């Protein structure tokens, strides 16, 4: 297998103002009866991108995918693929293929016939179909299962047949609806990397819908976090995690502590936030925020340091509390510290040493501390 590291390393067309988007959602709205599934949504996806739509069920991510495939028409707005408006084009004429959540393998056809199905619809010559099917079977390592029916395969094999079938036509875009949802955890993790390699190998644009944030973070170049039919943030996995744009995104991805308060004062790139109890923290923030604004400081548990003694010097923010709860997870320990103002803060620390002289335990007094750049200030 070739290494695609160098390609992925430099792949960032969204940063290039001259790059033309490959898929464009322009003010797309989809209404079912009195339910608005997608609400005036605009989104650009670039060629060869591995793009993930992440959100809870009912957020509109599947509807977005189904509109791209042609199973639903937008109520208003336009969807463009490679500059071409897709409105009115039925699913069987779109150069887009989908891998279904249920796999939707035709139960009365063999693996081979399933993979050949789409090619036959195009009227491809028979020898070409055979060659392509062979190639696909090799790609997903199912050569010896060609003559089997879907029910004679294991879950992982079925998933690979579904994948082979949907890429056999070399679509411009491959849509994947919860592609790994039906697999067990171990298989899922292995398959994530296979999917990434496959995408690079074939040079296709992938749009994947998932509710599993780990899956989205592992595979995608960029993630769109969706809620109530709208895109809350589109960014790389690292940005989504480290620089969420709103309370919703910060809360949706990973664990987070929200320290709520009012802006007391600000200078060039720092603000001072006063909490409900009067405790003040000083954190980095470059955006424009007026004193008196209600904000939240979002900080991830692993960015908070827990210690039994007051940290000295360093200019870090420090607060005192009591160990309310703790969970030893092996690689790390998670603390719930109840601060003196009553708020409970989650903090995790890596157990890099095997033996602690004086481990913190229930009801101990403890200090938490974090640096000014350890979190982000959120106004939304």
């Amino acid at each position: 297998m070739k290494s695609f590291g160098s390609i992925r390393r430099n792949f960032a067309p969204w940063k290039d103002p001259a790059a033309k988007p490959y898929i464009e959602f322009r003010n797309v709205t989809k209404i079912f009866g009195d339910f608005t599934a997608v609400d005036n949504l605009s989104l650009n996806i670039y060629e060869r991108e591995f793009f993930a739509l992440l959100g809870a069920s009912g957020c509109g991510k599947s509807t977005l995918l189904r509109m791209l495939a042609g199973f639903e028409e937008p109520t208003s707005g336009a969807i463009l693929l490679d500059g071409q408006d897709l409105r009115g084009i039925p699913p069987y004429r779109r150069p887009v293929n989908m891998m279904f959540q249920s796999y939707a393998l035709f139960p009365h056809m063999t693996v081979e016939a399933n993979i050949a199905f789409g090619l036959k619809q195009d009227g491809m010559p028979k020898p070409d179909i055979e060659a392509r099917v062979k190639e696909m079977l090799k790609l997903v390592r199912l050569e010896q299962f060609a003559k089997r029916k879907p029910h004679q395969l294991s879950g992982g094999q079925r998933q690979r047949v579904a994948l082979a079938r949907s890429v056999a036509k070399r679509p411009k875009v491959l849509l994947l609806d919860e592609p790994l949802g039906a697999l067990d955890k171990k298989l899922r993790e292995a398959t994530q990397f296979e999917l990434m390699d496959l995408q690079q190998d074939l040079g296709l644009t992938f749009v994947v819908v998932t509710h599993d944030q780990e899956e989205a973070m592992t595979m995608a170049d960029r993630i769109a976090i969706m809620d109530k039919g709208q895109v809350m943030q589109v960014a790389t996995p690292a940005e989504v995690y480290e620089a969420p744009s709103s309370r919703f995104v910060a809360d949706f991805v990973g664990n987070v502590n929200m320290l709520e308060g009012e802006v007391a004062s600000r200078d060039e790139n720092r603000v001072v936030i006063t909490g409900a109890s009067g405790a003040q923290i000083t954190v980095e923030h470059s955006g424009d925020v007026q004193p008196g604004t209600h904000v939240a400081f979002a900080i991830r548990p692993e960015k908070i340091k827990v210690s039994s003694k007051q940290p000295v010097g360093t200019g870090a923010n420090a607060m005192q509390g009591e160990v309310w709860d703790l969970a030893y997870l092996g690689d790390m320990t998670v603390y719930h510290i109840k601060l003196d103002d009553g708020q409970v803060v989650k903090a995790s620390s890596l157990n890099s040493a095997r033996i602690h002289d004086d481990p913190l335990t229930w009801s101990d007094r403890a200090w938490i501390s974090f640096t000014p750049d350890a979190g982000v200030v959120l106004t939304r």
Partner: protein
Amino acid sequence: MAQTLDQTAAAQPPREGEGLASFIRSRMVILVPYLWLLVFFLIPFAIVFKISLSQSAISMPPYAPTFDVSAGFSGLLDNLRELSFDNYLWLLDDALYFNAYLSSVWIAAVSTFFALLIGYPMAYAMARAPSSLRMVLLMLVILPFWTSFLIRVYAWIGILKPEGLLNQFLIWVGIIDTPLQIMNTHTAIYIGIVYSYLPFMVLPLYASLEKMDFSLIEAAQDLGCPPISAFWKITFPLSLPGALAGCLLVFIPAVGEFVIPDLLGGSQTLMIGKTLWNEFFANRDWPVASAVAIVLLLILVVPMMFFQRAQARAQEQER
């Protein structure tokens, strides 16, 4: 062979013919069976109703006025003027018809009750049987349903008649010394109906009992409910939809049953299906037969609507 939009959509505008074909096809799927049922199911009822308002006549067809489209609109008006409710008054006048309706409903109700009494324990036992046995038992319930109704009713004649197998057996055992008169009584009809319609009772009951989660019973018992009372408080209420469907499937056709009262009930039994048949085939009085059918339909309309409602609800649940 990468697909491109130019090949698929832009260069070839969607073919008109195909769009049209798929439009017609999708409507055809509804239209063809719809029209068939309108012509062969609904319109016939309108004709039955119309003829029930006509006078009996000695001709072919034996009623007047007949439909004559060539007479035009005025002819149709003349026809309408000749229509009358005489046949319905006749039904009211003659106690025979009233009694026939009443005893049909009564016989159907009693038979439905006994079918439930026999069918429920069967369905319950089937639902509790190990799954390997269950398919065999289900097959055994369905099999008689495939065999001819007429034959199954006929089989009882040889058993129930005075010198029949049942009496021979009972005398041989020594329970009785003179043959029981079962043939040509209501008892024979009850037996016939329960026997013929038992699968219709068992199948919906089994379906609703089999779906039930047995851990519900375990939960009830765990919470201190003894088995008998767990049955009445949990199992029975949950199986009521199945029981209702089964009862309707037995009751409705049983009210209008003809073969069973005719073959097992003898000449003395009054059931409306038999009365209708006699009016039609023996008396050749088509208008009165039609009136009998309309009144029978009116009696059954309410349970039939119940049935359709239950069907629709069951369908919704499966969705």
